[in-house]
């Protein structure tokens, strides 16, 4: 528990940790995560290997790497006969040793995320019961979120085991990620208010009919590290190659094209080599900048 609290120190913005991860180190982390399962133990393993990095950064990297891994094997697991086989295996095992963490074990055996496996199994369960009608997404999601809605209590218990133990997938993880995202946007706004920097947020922009909306548009541009900043986008994740390039194409360049140069904050750090578009108007930071220069400071100070 203390671990979790430590990791959030930077989140609360009280201590600004510098998260410098070069590509070589990122690859090292990636190699280590290749065999890891999405459990709390794995996170601890990572922490002992890379003690200088904040746990939140490691979790974010691991989570992104794990998701890439899952996407690669998605097709394999989703084939109808494969799904059927998983369900049969669970059913037969459930009869012999119901107390064992059956779904977790199965997930480990086939290298699938426990939460994703749980989803497949519940889907099968619902199909079996309702025979013809495919289970509605809504019902399915509710059951995963609150396993005790599942009529089969044993299955409910196993599903719960999966969703609570999976640190990369599942409704709880989604919820936490969502919360983290909002909190960082909040944090960003707080920091701006603290600095008396007036801004328009996403909602205000949307109401004005902007076609692309960064989290923040500064009403008065600032300079960070000599670079002009008109907009700020908050990303409560680690900036790796894949996600950064996706964001560049879908968001950052669009912002640049409309609002001029801006700043992206990857609160959990980023591969340092990615910060190479500064002259093109995209500056990367791993926290709220402390070296902000505003318009009136320069001459005013020199006059004093």
């Amino acid at each position, binding site marked *: 528990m203390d671990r979790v609290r430590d990791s959030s120190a930077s989140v609360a913005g009280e201590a600004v940790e510098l998260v410098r991860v070069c590509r070589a180190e990122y690859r090292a982390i990636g190699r280590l995560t290749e065999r890891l399962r999405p459990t709390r133990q794995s996170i601890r393993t990572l922490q002992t290997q890379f003690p200088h990095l904040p746990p939140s950064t490691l979790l974010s990297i691991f989570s992104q790497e794990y998701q890439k891994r899952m996407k690669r094997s998605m097709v394999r697991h989703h084939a109808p006969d494969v799904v059927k086989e998983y369900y049969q295996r669970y059913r037969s095992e459930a009869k012999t040793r119901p107390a064992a963490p059956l779904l977790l074990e199965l997930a480990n055996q086939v290298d699938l995320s426990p939460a994703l496996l749980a989803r497949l199994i519940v889907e099968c369960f619902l199909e079996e019961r309702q025979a013809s009608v495919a289970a509605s997404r809504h019902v399915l999601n509710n059951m995963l979120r609150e396993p005790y809605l599942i009529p089969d209590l044993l299955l409910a218990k196993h599903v719960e085991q999966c969703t609570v133990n999976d640190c990369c997938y599942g409704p*709880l993880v989604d919820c936490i990620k969502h919360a*983290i995202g909002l909190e960082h946007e909040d944090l960003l706004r707080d920091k701006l208010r603290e600095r008396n920097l007036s801004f328009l947020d996403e909602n205000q922009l949307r109401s004005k009919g902007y076609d692309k909306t960064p989290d923040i548009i500064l009403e008065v541009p600032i300079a960070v590290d000599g670079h002009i900043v008109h907009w700020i986008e908050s990303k409560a994740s680690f900036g790796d190659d894949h996600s950064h390039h996706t964001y560049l194409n879908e968001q950052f360049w669009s912002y640049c094209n409309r609002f001029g140069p801006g700043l992206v904050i990857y609160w959990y750090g980023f591969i340092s080599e990615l910060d190479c578009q500064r002259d093109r*108007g995209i500056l990367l930071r791993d926290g709220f900048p402390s070296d902000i220069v505003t318009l009136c400071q320069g001459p005013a100070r020199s006059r004093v």
Partner: protein
Amino acid sequence: SQTLTHGPTTPAKTPSTSRSVRTQDFSDRRGNKSTPIQTSRSASRVQLFSPAPSVSPVSGRGEGRRRSGGFGGCASGRQTGPRGAVSEEGVRWDGGGRRSRGVGRIEPVSPPTQVQLNFNNLEDFPPVGAAQSPPVATKPSRRINPTPVSAERPNSKPKSCFISTPLSLPASPPAIPESAGAKLTAGSPHSLQEERELLRKERYVWAVIFSLNNIPVSMMMNLICLLSIYVHADVLEKAYLGNVHNCVYFSVRVLENQFELVSHLDKCTLRLLSENERVGTFSSSLKDHLAQAQENCTAKVLPSPPMFVHSVPFQPATDNRSNFSSDRAFHTFKKQRDVFYGFLREWEDSHKEPGWDFEAALGSRVRMMVSQLTAAGSHSHFARLFQKQLIQMCKGPCVLGSSSDAPDADLLGMLGADSLGRLKRLQQRLVQPQGLIGPCPPPSFPGHQEFFKCFLQTASCCQLNQHLKDGLCQQLLKLDEVSILGPDDEKQRFSSVLLTARLLAKFLGFISFLPYQTSELPSRDIQDTAITLRSKSSPVLDVCAVLRSSVHRRRTILTVPWIVEFLSMLDHIGPLLPFYRTALCLLLQIYKRMLLGRGGELCYMNQLLMVAVLGWLFQIPIFPEDLFFSTDLKEEVKELENITSSQGLDTLPLVDQQLLYTCCPYLGEFRKLLAAFVAGSTSKSGGLIRKITPTSAELRGPSTSRSQQKLQVDLEQAFFHNQPPSLRRTVEFVAERVGSNCVKHIKATLVLELVKGGEKTLRDSLGLEGVNTAKLNDSICAQLCDAGMQALETATRFCSENAPGAVRVLLPLETSPSVLTTAESITTRLATEKACSWLSANITSSGQVQKNCTHKVPLGSEVMIEIKEVLSVAVGPRSEEEAYTVHQIESLLYRVGQTLGCRKKTDYLFLIRQLIERGLLGEEEVGTNWPKLSALSWPEVISKTLRFEAGILTNHFLMAFLVCSCRSL
């Protein structure tokens, strides 16, 4: 011949073949037996500036080439070619007799050295024209017309530069007696006296030609030619003036006579010139004058702007959904905007790579994009974006790709001529492959302009082009009408307007004549057909009318430079059409009627700019030569000028050196030439590029909210009317700032108190039983309104305290007291208005009252992560050592409570309702405790209302809490 390579081989537009033919013809006609040595036919003017390290004696004797090659290539064979009228004037100097005298022996170039000059020494100052063959010419005047040959000029056609004075005009001043020529005919060695006399007259001719300036010849080109004579005197010595000393003497004297013009060149050129030892040797007074001019040269160089893509801002007023016909059009354009910038970045990244080709790399994607725009009918939007982006990126001088090594513009000047080694190193760094472009480069699309040009070519989309033409025309005419009142304040604005107009005009010309562009000059028949055909349709822009009006209203300094850009894009047929012919004639007449220096020092730079851009237009290939002799419209222009208004832009000193050099980068050739001399450059690319940074700051008059009291407004307008415009801008500026500061101040003080007060009221009231929330809301709002009134008072006080002082500081000390007082009170009123309008818009209707919470509590996500971990341990599987103590659980619960207590983080009421629904909170307990709930700390709430036995924590609660949090966040 080697000699040849030291000068531009040929006029700019003359491709090698045609020229060589003509030269051949020339020498043959003169009965010259020796074959012209045809080296470097296609060489550009680069060679003009590269002193040759060695000269082959054989080639040095190349008959008939002396004149053209030797004289820095300034005179050329084309003088004879098609224009018999002027051919004889050159011939006189070409007898070749000098050479036979052996005066013209070729020596290796020696570095300039200080020499003791003995003007009576025939070795140092050999007679000019001695032992010449019988001259043909009777006039001693000659003109030197170098033009660069440039291989990359697509529009070039075989054409020589115009070189002569219109016959009707007195080219040779009466002061030059016929005997000057006669003396030369003697064919015997002249006395030194005669020699000096001759040189004196020679330079006098030049000087008169320059100052009369009634010849449609690029003055700049002549000057650069002169400088090249000067710089390359060593090499040229045998060619024409006999020896190095004569060359230098000649050049220095002309420079002296044209000192006014020279003194308007940039500081660096002046410095290089004044530090050149040759100047000092031959004319210490010129040296002194140059040094003095250099000190007076005040041109400031602004720091160069950052060079990333400045995008066109998204403006809801013109860009949001309501401006599009359908959702689909809106979203298509959203995508296309990004796609367009994607192309731009790709081009920036790769266009300099060898083998990269716009069409090959982007062609199909560009056309795909354009076709999608067509499908969505969004061309007008894209055309606007395109035009704005063009202005944003290309208005200033081109510094693409050189931002990193952009040198201090005066670095060269500071170094001076003595730091040779450093200079050479510097040169290595600064030199660009096409460093030297010659004094009359063909029209080009430098820097980012190339992207826009290639885009249009590749897209080849008539819809887009039409929308662009509409937009460009509209904005050009708008810019042309811009009112500029005085030079003091409006210089920068003028500069910005002029540069923008020139850019837009070039692109308008490009798009308009694009359909007619052909690589070859069409045959006469095709020409005639085309002329008949195209005379029927109306031109895209009535340039003639615009020109006439500009002359009439004395606004040529703005109009002519952009019309020149527009017309420089003409296709082969274009100038033959009556309409454009008229326009060109008008320009020619304007040029002829202009006398440099006539308007006094005040507008010298204006005139210099006009002369430079017009001279350039007349030299580029597209300009029809026969027009030079035309006297069409002469009377009309004369009349137009006679009935001009007395006031106009032309009478204001609006052009400064920076603008001049930005519009005419080829003026930098002077400096490059001199720098190359200093550096003793042998580098082929040799030449130094100086960055000239644009003055692009546009002061935007802040809009001020207008008072309803119309009379006051009218009085105010009247007040400003007779004051300098800077006063109005200062007032508006100060008002805007003071108003804004006032708002900030009120936000930071009063609003904060209001929020605290409001929140307290809310909390107090919630503590009472049976509170009517609607009523509560009303009363809080009423309180806020009162406070709002108070804020307005504060704002008024703030503005009247701060605005007057600011205005006083910014206005000139000499401002009369009553003007000052009025300005102060207007500023105060405007500032107050601004502040109050913000306050009334924001305070009274503010729904964003923040809660009094420091938020120094664990974040929701942190608590959730902890809970999830506890749950995963609780649900298992877990290891032996993984266990939580009751204390740990309690501590977690405490933090849960804290987080919930900070209502900012979660939707408090929603969460409670959810917990009640799940039976985790007792409804009765909540009911009875409800009024106090907000006042209680959450740990208390939990302990009081949570339905579980003490010490036993159910997973259900935490799970439910997590789920509820998911929804309430």
